[in-house]
């Protein structure tokens, strides 16, 4: 019992930094909904609003890791719901390749995630962030791609 409490305390020492690229039309609105609904979720994610998940260049993701993010989330509208009709389909293909590349280089697969969160899914957004932060806490800080300054 005491061990579990101590382990929990140790795990909480590390607060991972998450950079979340949220599309303006769905996921960003979803995160707003989570906020106005007063849902409780970790405050580790720094949201960055982008116009579309399809506009997230792989270099944004790599650069986030380079500048010290422990995890990166890209979130967009559900397939078929894209405001620009097909932006998230392009994103899905591209992000898949980025994920494979990160894994091939030896970055833990859990550090990079993509999710579909609609404007009505505040609860899902809170869940995605909670899961992500918990997984990252288990992994510890990201050092592989982080620039040494």
């Amino acid at each position, binding site marked *: 019992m005491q061990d579990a409490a101590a382990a929990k305390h140790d795990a909480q020492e590390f607060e991972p930094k998450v950079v979340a690229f949220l599309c303006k039309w769905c996921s960003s609105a979803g995160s707003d909904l989570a906020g106005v609904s007063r849902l409780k979720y970790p405050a580790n994610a720094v949201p960055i609003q982008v116009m579309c998940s399809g506009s997230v260049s*792989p270099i944004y993701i790599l650069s986030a890791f380079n500048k010290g993010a422990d995890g990166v989330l890209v979130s967009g509208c559900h397939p078929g719901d894209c405001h620009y009709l097909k932006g998230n389909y392009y994103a899905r293909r591209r992000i898949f390749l980025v994920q494979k590349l990160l894994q091939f280089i030896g970055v833990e697969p859990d550090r990079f995630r993509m999710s579909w969160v609609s404007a009505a899914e505040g609860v899902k957004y809170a869940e995605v962030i909670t899961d992500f932060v918990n997984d990252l806490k288990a992994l510890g800080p990201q050092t592989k791609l982080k620039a040494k300054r």
Partner: protein
Amino acid sequence: MIPVEDIRARAKDLLQSGKVRAVLGYRRSTAGLLAEPAFMTTADETAALVLDPTCVGNLALYLVNEKKRMKHARQSDKRPLGIVAKGCDSRAITVLLQENHIRRDEVIVLGVSCETGGMIDTRKLNKALRGKGATSAHFEGEGGVRVSYVGGGTILPGKDVLADRCLECAKSYPLDADFFFGEKVDERPYGPRFAAVSAIAEKGSEERSAFWDAHFERCIRCYACRAVCPMCYCDECVVDSTNFIVGPTTSADEKADRVRWINRSATPSENAMYHMVRAMHLAGRCIDCGECERVCPVNIPLRLLNTMLEREALEMFQYTPGIDAEQPSLISSFRDGDPNDFVR
């Protein structure tokens, strides 16, 4: 066997008739074993044209360079350029056509099949010869390479001396050629495709991480991989922004606000960034000519990064780069059935 005489005759004919302004091919180099690329502008020069396992370079690169040169040339000769293209070179040309970087009527492709042969890897050859300096190499029968060195010669099996990319070659002959030399051979006596990348992919995450850390640490950022790549034709590369001019009136704020995606310093993290960005930029475009790996002065296995994405593209999206100039590119297209399980 690859009929060099036929290629010479065709190149000579093209130049004599004035159909091309130059023929881009290989000739014996004055330094070392490998053949050098050559722009042949007169019919006489074609006598020097060679084609053997030392013609490792990807000539499509010179189409890109020539386009850059032509842009600034005072007078431009509008006639097409003849180019000797192996299977991989021709795939590179197809990708350039697909991206509208060049037009089809700007090139006359003299396609050459490697048949069951391929191009040698000098590192492997030196190892096989144990210090004897090779002076020439020729194809010999089914997948063999006849190598001569000072005071002797030997026949080595192809699988020992051919470059990895040739052992894993998908199509050893060009699909889009105006003139074709050699025979189309689909069954090659070598290992399966993606053998090298599979070996790395099967390792554990930590082992892979250590493997790449060791390699990226050595990178000296000479950008030879970028310079030799026919697909790296951007005027401005993300790693060196040339359009940001620092002058006497540039304020400190402007300098500070400038976006630096990747620093130039050759530190492991920045090197990893550079190579990953390059791999992403080549996803669905890299045609596996293996030149980046060959020119790397510190022997980083760069080809692995590109072939890994090539394998994913083939397995997950059924996409093969460089087979059809009309197909939409890998990341400018999608299908409803693309993998979706990885998304939460």
